[in-house]
């Protein structure tokens, strides 16, 4: 069978082809919206026209069979108009209001989770993990599944003081937005990489390998056409592994995850914030990572009980102070919490006023 003629540099199709007529007509002329339930909302335009949205969760990894099933539902209830959100939820764009409730009913009947809107927990931004990436030192999808089995009510019904954005990254490259999430899991190494001397010489450009190390821990070893690593300087970032595979950073015994908290994207009230270290290390415990889930549940519960309405996790912690955060959550404060890398100057305390 012959293939169609390829084209280059055509880019993606223009989005206009995929907009429901009511959106096309009111593009840029929306006036307000109302969240009806955690899974439904209605946007109203200046003209008075309305579009109803129904949002469902997705595991992000989707089989084409599931996509087709969603498409069938979209055809049945909303003219086939369907979109995805930046957090990997799926949205049905319903122009005929009467179709919304039956759509929700059928979605629930089929086992889909309707929700994700408003002050709760939306879908979890995450990365490839053992499912697909060579760098992964945990499985992102597995942790997400275990977490959300526990927290799903915050997606569908329960609310929190404000949105809590969760994320999971399977290595410090963080192909997500872990460094600015309310609560996030990031996989970390704790051991200096092992060097396969013979292959380093064959496969890698030595100057590039040396240049890749942020702490200048890597020295050339010209005699054996390889490199050596200064154990005292290495902080296990894995960048040398990225540029040179024979430098193996993986160590299943010692790899695991850290939990970071208090990051924020929006500029609402306070500036965007980085997430900061709460728990330096928990072991990988597949398939359900119970200690990770418990640790997050603890932080969530303490936040829910103590934060003021509209306060994000990071805003709440800044108001009460980090010393109180550790006290309230019972999380142990360790040497690892004190920055000794690029941000040390900004993070040590420079005042005699603090709490116990």
């Amino acid at each position: 069978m012959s293939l169609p003629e390829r084209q280059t540099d055509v880019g993606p199709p223009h989005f206009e082809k995929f907009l429901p007529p009511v959106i096309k007509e009111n593009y840029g002329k929306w006036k307000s919206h109302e969240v009806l339930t955690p899974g439904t909302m209605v946007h109203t335009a200046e003209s008075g026209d309305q579009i109803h949205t129904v949002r469902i969760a997705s595991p992000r990894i989707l089989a084409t069979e599931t996509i087709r099933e969603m498409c069938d539902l979209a055809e049945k209830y909303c003219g086939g108009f369907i979109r995805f959100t930046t957090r990997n939820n799926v949205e049905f764009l319903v122009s005929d209001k009467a179709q919304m409730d039956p759509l929700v009913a059928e979605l629930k009947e089929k086992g889909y989770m309707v929700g994700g809107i408003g002050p709760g927990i939306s879908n979890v931004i995450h990365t490839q993990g053992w499912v697909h990436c060579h760098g992964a030192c945990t499985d992102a999808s597995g942790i997400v599944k275990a977490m959300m089995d526990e927290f799903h009510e915050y997606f569908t019904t329960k609310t929190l003081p404000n949105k809590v954005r969760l994320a999971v990254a399977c290595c410090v490259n963080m192909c997500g937005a872990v460094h600015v999430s309310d609560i996030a899991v990031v996989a970390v190494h704790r051991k200096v990489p092992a060097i396969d001397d013979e292959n380093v010489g064959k496969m890698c450009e030595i100057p590039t390998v040396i240049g890749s190390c942020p702490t200048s821990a890597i020295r050339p070893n010209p005699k054996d056409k390889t490199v050596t690593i200064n154990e005292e300087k290495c902080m296990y970032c894995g960048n040398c592994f990225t540029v040179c595979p024979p430098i193996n950073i993986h160590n299943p015994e010692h790899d695991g995850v850290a939990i970071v908290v208090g990051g924020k994207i929006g500029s609402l009230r306070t500036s965007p914030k980085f997430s900061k270290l709460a728990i330096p290390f928990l072991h990988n415990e597949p398939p359900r990572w119970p200690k990770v889930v418990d640790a997050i549940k603890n932080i969530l519960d303490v936040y829910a009980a103590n934060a003021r309405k509209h306060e994000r996790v990071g805003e709440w912690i800044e108001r009460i102070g980090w010393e109180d955060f550790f006290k309230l959550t019972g999380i142990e404060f360790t040497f690892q919490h004190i920055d000794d890398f690029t941000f040390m100057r900004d993070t040590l305390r420079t005042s005699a006023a603090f709490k116990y």
Partner: protein
Amino acid sequence: MEEKEIQDEIFAYLEKMKGKKKLKEKDIYKKMMADHAELDKNTVKTALRAMINVGKVMYSYGGGASSVEIPSEEYLKEKGLI
């Protein structure tokens, strides 16, 4: 310079550097412009792109960064070019 001549020189340069240094497009522009004052970036770029389009030269990826290389026989077979 004729496009063909430029392409031959690019190819020779890539062959010479093979296994020594991974070249980026920009390294090739710089080298060609240094050797031939009359050449500008766009002329070299056009010549190089024409080579890439037919698989005489290819983009490669390794060590976290992209570079330009002479394709392996395996690649050429895969693309039905030899």
